[in-house]
C-alpha cells in the first residue's frame, strides 16, 4: 500500500523541517563550543603566513593577493565541510542511545545529516565575522566572487561536504564491530590533510604529486571549491564528475556495510 507521491513528499518535507529546526535549537545551545571549534580551523591562516613570507622572495607563480584569497576561501570551505559523524555515532553506540533511534521509522543517517547542517548554520555568523576581520586586517585582499562563481563555489562546497560525510559514514560502520573505531578516522584524516589543499594550494605541489592527488577524492574537498570561490579557473565539469564518481563508489559499500552492521548489532551490554 503506497501512498501517492505528493503525499509522501509533503510528509518528507515536514520531517525534514522538524529535524532541522530541533537540531538547530540544540546546536544554538552549544554555540560557545561551536565558536571554539570554528577557531580551531586556523591552519589555513598559519600556512598563509608561511607562504606569504616565502613569496616575499618571489618566484612562486602565485601573487600575494592570490595566496591570501585562496587560503581565506580554503578556511571558509573547511568550516562548512567539517564532518564528525564518526565520533557522535561511536558515542551513541557506546551509550546505548542507538537502540531507541533505530526504532524510529526514519533512517538514522538523516538525524546526523540534519545535525551537521544545523551546526553549519550556527557557525555561519561567526565565520562571517572572521572573514570580515580578515579583510579589516588585510584590506588589499578584499574581493567578492561573481554571482556565478559564488553559486558554483557553494554548490561545490556542498558536494564536498556530502562526499566527505559519505566517506566518513562508510568508515563509521566499523563501529558495529569495534569499540574504538574512531581511531581509524585518524588514518582517513592524514591523506585529507596533506592532499586536500589545506596546507598549500595544489598548484604549488610538484607536478607528479599533483597528478596523483587529483586521482584521489581529497583535492575536491578543499582545493577545488576554494579556487572556484577565489575566482580562479577550474575544470568545473570534470571536478563534479570526479566527485560523483567517488560518491557512486562509496554509496553501495556504505549501504552494504550498514545492512551487515545492523544484523550484527546487539546493543551495548548485550
Amino acid at each position, binding site marked *: 500500500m503506497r501512498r501517492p507521491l505528493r503525499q509522501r513528499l509533503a510528509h518528507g518535507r515536514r520531517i525534514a523541517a522538524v529535524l532541522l529546526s530541533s537540531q538547530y535549537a540544540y546546536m544554538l545551545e552549544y554555540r560557545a563550543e561551536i565558536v571554539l571549534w570554528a577557531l580551531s580551523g586556523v591552519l589555513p591562516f598559519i600556512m598563509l603566513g608561511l607562504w606569504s613570507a616565502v613569496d616575499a622572495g618571489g618566484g612562486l607563480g602565485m601573487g600575494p593577493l592570490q595566496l591570501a584569497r585562496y587560503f581565506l576561501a580554503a578556511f571558509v570551505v573547511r568550516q562548512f565541510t567539517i564532518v564528525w559523524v564518526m565520533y557522535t555515532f561511536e558515542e551513541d553506540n557506546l551509550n546505548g542511545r542507538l537502540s531507541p533511534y533505530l526504532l524510529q521509522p526514519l533512517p538514522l543517517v538523516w538525524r546526523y545529516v540534519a545535525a551537521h547542517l544545523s551546526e553549519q548554520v550556527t557557525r555561519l555568523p561567526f565565520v562571517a565575522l572572521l572573514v570580515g576581520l580578515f579583510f579589516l586586517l588585510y584590506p588589499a585582499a578584499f574581493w567578492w566572487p561573481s554571482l556565478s562563481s559564488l553559486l558554483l563555489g557553494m554548490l561545490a562546497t556542498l558536494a564536498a561536504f556530502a562526499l566527505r560525510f559519505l566517506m566518513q559514514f562508510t568508515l563509521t560502520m566499523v563501529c558495529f564491530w569495534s569499540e574504538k573505531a574512531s581511531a581509524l578516522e585518524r588514518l582517513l584524516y592524514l591523506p585529507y590533510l596533506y592532499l586536500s589543499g589545506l*596546507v598549500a594550494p595544489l598548484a604549488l605541489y610538484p607536478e607528479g604529486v599533483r597528478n596523483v592527488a587529483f586521482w584521489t577524492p581529497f583535492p575536491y574537498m578543499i582545493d577545488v571549491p576554494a579556487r572556484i570561490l577565489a575566482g580562479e579557473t577550474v575544470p568545473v565539469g570534470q571536478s563534479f564528475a570526479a566527485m560523483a564518481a567517488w560518491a557512486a563508489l562509496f554509496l553501495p559499500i556504505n549501504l552494504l556495510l550498514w545492512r551487515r552492521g545492523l544484523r550484527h548489532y546487539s546493543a551495548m551490554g548485550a
Partner: protein
Amino acid sequence: MGRYLTTLRVFWIASLTAELEYQANFLIELVATAGNLLGSIFVLSLFYGRGQSLGGWSWEGALVVLGVYTLLEGVTSTLLQPNLSTIVAHVRTGSLDFVLLKPIDSQFWLSARTFSPWGLPGIALGAALIGYAAWKAGASPAPLTLLAAALMLIASLLILYSLWFVLAASSIWFVKIWNATEVLRSVLVAGRFPVSAFPAGLRAFFTFVVPVAFLTTVPAEAILGRATGPWLLAGGTVAAGSLVVSRWFWRFALGFYTSASS
C-alpha cells in the same frame, strides 16, 4: 618525594594494563604518527624544493624543529591530553571532590593519573628525527651543547604543560572550555616551522602571546649548538614563570570550586 614516585609507578602500571586491552590501536597510532611525520616533511620539501628557505634555516635545521614538534606531540598524547581532558568531567560530575580529599597534591594527581602508551611512537620518531637531522647538520655533541639542549627541551615541556593545564583548569568556571584545548592544539601547529619563517606580526604573536617559539625553535637552536645566553635565559625564565602561574592559577581556581549541583 618518594611517596610521589611510588604513586606514579602504581598509576602508570594500572593505566598501561588497561590501555593494552586495545593493542590494534598501537598499530594505528604508529601508522598515523609516521604518516603525519612524512606529510610534514613533504610540506617542508614544498618550501625547500623551490630553492627557498624558511626564515634562513637550513633543511636539516628545519627538520630538527619538526623533530622537536613531533616529540612534543607524542608527550601531549601520552600525558597531557589523557590526564587534563578529565578535569572537565571531574568538575561536571563533582568527582573532583574525591580528588581534593586525597592525601596527595591535587595538581599532581590530575596531571599524572594516567599514562597512555599511544604517544610513545611520536616520542621515539621525534627523537630519532632530531638525532638524524642534528647529525646531518653537523652539530657536535659537546657536553655544553647537550646540557643546553636538555635544559631547553625541559623548559619547552614545562611551558607546554602549563599552557594545557591553565586552559584545562579554567573548566572550573566554564564547563564547556574543553574545546579551547583544541584551539590551542591547532595554534601550536605553527611550531612545526622555525618561528623566523613567519611575517613579523605573526612572529611576535608566536613569541609573546602563545610562546610557540620557546616550544620548538629555541630547543632546536640549542640542539644545533647555536643557543645564545639571552635566549637560554629567556627560555628558562618563561618556563619557570609559566609553571609558577599554573600553580597559582590552580589555587585561585579552586577557590571558586563549589562542587556539582551547588
